């Protein structure tokens, strides 16, 4: 177990700048998710930590130890791959034994550690099977067990749930998180699925085009996004363009084409901004902030009703309302939302 430090990492492929000044400190036992659209550099970052990719500039440290130029086999980490990458010519037990044999663990201890970890992932009776004889979810747990049985300092997971079907994926989220907390291992998890990152992580690192857009607890990322990209990528959001006129009790007073809005935000903002409102914070009655518009589309979704509203300026707002509201296209509506649930983002 250790801390993990990425100290201004840069990576070039030829002239392509893949990672730009990635700076990250991961605490002991912390679960960090690297989240972002494909091509954002999250997998490359993970491969740099694993040592499969060299970095052009910067340092990688496990605890105090500089790992920048250490070969992957000497980094003492456990890695779970998207494809599971189990050894097809070895049984489950032999897959787990592989890393222990490299470490010259005596046979008796190997056997007891394998048994213990297989119990942990609930695969005790499968030790003699070959990977091809297991389901996707079982293979996934073998991959996890193989990475954990060597008791590594750091656990790296590269989209481990991407190949599982939806219901299994939900179970595995909690399973992995629970296991990680029991073992207490420092973990870096790469995913493009925001809800996965949200429920599993201590902190989420949102990446875009090789840059860290924001790093923070799931609640920070969701409620107080640092940029438009983060607001758009995590959950549904409505953003209304405007201009800061002054301060207000909640934080800022923003002038928009559809009227003034009170909103919270980080210090030091001025000029052109956007006000972000999550659909679930919008009520169908006037509130601290009020907007009026016309319904353009109303889509019945069972539990609720998705409502698309056009404001007089032409901006669109999406919200969900109780299915009891029977609104149809063209109806006028009033939307209200609290100032502290409105968030100002630099445009």
């Amino acid at each position, binding site marked *: 177990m250790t801390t993990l430090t990425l100290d201004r990492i840069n990576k070039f492929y030829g002239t392509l700048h893949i990672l730009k000044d990635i700076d990250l400190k991961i605490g002991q036992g912390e679960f960090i998710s690297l989240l972002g659209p494909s091509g954002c550099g999250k997998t490359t970052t993970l491969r740099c930590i*694993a*040592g*499969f990719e060299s970095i052009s500039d910067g340092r990688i440290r496990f605890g105090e130890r500089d790992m920048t130029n250490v*070969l*992957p*086999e*000497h*980094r*003492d*980490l*456990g*890695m779970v*791959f*998207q*494809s599971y*990458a*189990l*050894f*097809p*010519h*070895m049984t489950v037990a032999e897959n787990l034994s*592989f*890393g222990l044999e*490299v*470490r010259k663990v005596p046979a008796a201890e190997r056997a007891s550690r394998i048994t213990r970890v297989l119990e942990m992932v609930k695969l005790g009776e499968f030790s003699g099977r*070959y990977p*091809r004889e297991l389901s996707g979810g079982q293979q996934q747990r073998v991959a996890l067990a*193989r*990475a954990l049985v*060597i008791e590594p300092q750091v656990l*790296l997971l590269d989209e481990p749930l991407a190949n599982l079907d939806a219901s299994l994926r939900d179970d595995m989220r909690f399973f992995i998180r629970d296991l990680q907390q029991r073992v207490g291992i420092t973990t870096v998890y790469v995913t493009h699925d925001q809800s996965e990152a949200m429920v599993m992580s201590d902190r989420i690192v949102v990446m875009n085009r090789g840059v860290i857009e924001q790093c923070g607890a799931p609640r920070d990322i969701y409620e107080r996004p640092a940029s438009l990209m983060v607001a758009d990528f995590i959950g549904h959001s409505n953003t209304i363009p405007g201009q800061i006129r002054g301060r207000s009790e909640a934080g800022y007073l923003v002038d928009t084409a559809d009227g003034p809005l009170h909103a919270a935000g980080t210090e030091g903002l001025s000029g052109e901004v956007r006000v972000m409102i999550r659909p679930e914070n919008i009520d169908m009655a006037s509130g601290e902030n009020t907007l009026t518009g016309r319904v353009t589309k109303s889509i019945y979704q069972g539990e609720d009703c998705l409502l698309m509203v056009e404001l007089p300026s032409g901006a669109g707002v999406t919200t969900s309302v109780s299915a009891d509201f029977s609104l149809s296209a063209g109806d006028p509506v009033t939307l209200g939302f609290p100032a502290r649930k409105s968030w100002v983002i630099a445009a």
Partner: protein
Amino acid sequence: MSSVAAQIPRAISGPKHRAPVWWMILPALVLLVGFLILPYVSIVIMSFREASTRAVYGEGFTIAHYRDIVTDPFIWGIVWRTIRMALIVTVATLLLGYPVAYHLARTRSRMSSLLYICVISPLLVGLVVRTFAWMIILSNNGIANGALTGLGLVDRPVQLLNTQLGVTIALIHVFLPFVILPLLGNLQAINPEVALASRSLGASRMRTFFKVTLPLSMPGIQAGSILVFVLSISAYVTPAMLGGTQGRTMAVLVVQYLVDNFRWPAGAALAIFMALTTLAIVVVYLALTARAMRRLP
């Protein structure tokens, strides 16, 4: 109750569900029986015929030709030489070809298609033309000896033409693609993350190769080496043109029996003997490699 199948509308039980059409293999079957099996049968029969000075073979049947072969130390010498040479060619092509196949399977470089063409280049030139080129290269005042003397490695030209060594070198060149191509297909099918997983578990490159990559590439090794071994044993043009008497192989000897000495029954027996020997080696090899592959999917 009437048959359920009869009740299924035509559209559902449609053409896709019909049994495979046996006559589609007919053309290949005719070719195989007419041009491979029948000639083989006639050679087997011929090998048991008595020798004749007036016709291709005589009236009666005999096993004398086989007895002559297995009791002749001269023939055993050539059998052994042929097998040894085929083994050397097989091992050498494997050792030379594996790294090339591995590189081709893993590289993402655009230059790789150029390398691919280089790999199959020995097959792009006609056999006889290519062998003539080797004659020029291997002769006493050829390029190979020029380079060796020029570098000061030898004082006077090494005899390469009309030796086993010359034949071996030329065969390795021709048969390299036959080991690279099956290996390439095999290596490409191996998930590259498996090797990375091995490294992440603490195994060095070397250990990863011997414990993971090599066992998983056994099917490619098996296919490639059998191809090269069988082709080397039966090669005729290369040893005939480059081997002289010192590099004479079984295939050359068989043709000598048939064409030069006009001993058709004895030559046929020699050919059958050689085919059976090759078959025996291949069967043993298959059994051994199957053991190494028993854990693969």
